[in-house]
């Protein structure tokens, strides 16, 4: 993966098991987000292969729009559609891509909003919601399509500290329900308690990986140690 002359990702070899929560940490510019965005091809890698749930995402003739419904994505800036209510944010893809009737789509959307604890905000517009609520609606929007894997791109980085908890709670519930998750985040405490595996990336390569207890307590690489020391305080 590269932008012009700048190679962002080089030789990443990573596989995620079903129901696994893999946490990706690393300094900014290390390629974490790019790696995530390659998984549903919001960025096009110029070499390499990515396989999700048995289908090669990077294949030349793949029905990306169909595949993307099985890969949920949550963004740092939420990216809710400001001109639509919370419910309409969730139903848009259900109706236009899945072809569900308004009634069925509303039902599915309400179930998803209920799951993130925001059923009473279904009629609210994004501007009327707090950042944490907006991010939960964004999670519901992805969940409603029943994805096989969820990608979280710094889901709490744009939130006020007191709102982070609600989003992490929803993510933990997802994990407990058996969702496969790939999370780029700086929430080390969450990583410690919820992640199955932590990956430390720097300058486009995976420097080190392992279970959180091991990686946080006894990092093998100097780069990992330096990074962790910087983040810890």
């Amino acid at each position, binding site marked *: 993966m590269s932008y012009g002359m700048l190679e962002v990702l080089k030789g990443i070899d990573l596989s995620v098991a079903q129901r696994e929560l893999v946490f990706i940490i690393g300094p900014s510019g290390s390629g974490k987000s790019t790696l995530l965005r390659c998984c549903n091809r919001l960025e096009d890698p110029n070499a390499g292969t990515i396989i999700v749930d048995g289908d090669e995402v990077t294949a030349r003739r793949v029905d990306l729009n*169909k595949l993307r419904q099985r890969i949920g994505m949550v963004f740092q800036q939420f990216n809710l559609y400001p001109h639509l209510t919370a419910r309409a944010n969730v139903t848009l893809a259900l109706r236009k891509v899945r072809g569900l009737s308004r009634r069925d789509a509303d039902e599915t959307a309400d179930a998803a909003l209920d799951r993130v604890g925001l059923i009473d905000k279904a009629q609210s517009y994004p501007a009327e919601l707090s950042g944490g609520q907006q991010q939960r609606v964004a999670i519901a929007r992805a969940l409603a399509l029943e994805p096989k894997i969820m990608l979280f791109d710094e889901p709490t980085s744009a939130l006020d500290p007191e709102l982070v908890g609600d989003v992490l709670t929803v993510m933990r519930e997802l994990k407990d329900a058996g969702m496969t998750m790939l999370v780029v985040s700086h929430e080390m405490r969450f990583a410690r308690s919820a992640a199955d595996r932590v990956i430390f990336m720097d300058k486009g390569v995976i420097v080190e990986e392992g279970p959180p207890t091991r990686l946080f307590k006894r990092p093998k690489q100097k780069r990992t140690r330096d990074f962790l020391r910087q983040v810890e305080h």
Partner: protein
Amino acid sequence: MEQFLTQFFNVSLMLEAWPIVSRGLLMTLLLCVVVVPLGFAGGLMVALLGTVEHRWVRWPLVVYVDFFRAIPPLVLLIVIHSGLPFAGIRFSPFASVCLAFFLNNSAYYGEILRAGIDSIGKGQVDAARSTGLNALQAQIYVVLPQAIRNVLPDLVSNTVEVVKLTSLASVVAFHELLYSAEMARSITYNASPIVMAAGLYILMLWPVVRMLSRFEHRISS
């Protein structure tokens, strides 16, 4: 003073000219009803094509928009109506006006809409695409509704311009408001029908312009 009033505000002459002028007014309205939606639709196409990053789409589009924004609409109209017949292509006055306005308006509306689309963050398209919407659906359901709202004042003020420019159709003998008033003037040797036409244009557009000002004021405050 007396002479001024009979020359410009002769009410009985205005009433006499009303049948001709009112027919002209109807034709102007008809022209607007055809030309504005057509131009807007063309503008949408131009703006949507503008989101395609392929250079074989991009370059012809740049040339198209630049050309039709730079050429005076009156010149374009005369080229179509009086020039093309030399190439064996003949359009009725109405068709000539529609074509000229479509070419001109689609370029202008297109640029306005493009500015609107540019004002919407890339994250919106990312989110839409990540849920499986294709590129066109993402534009239609997510980007355009927000983009149009952002450039609504510009769209309305361009539409006011278009309505005023329909008077150009008089040049190719299309019987719209100005042409009819001018005909009535040449029969009566009196400027009152022209004044009446001017009054009708203002009557049509003043409420729109007023609303626009209030709307823009509200946005800026």
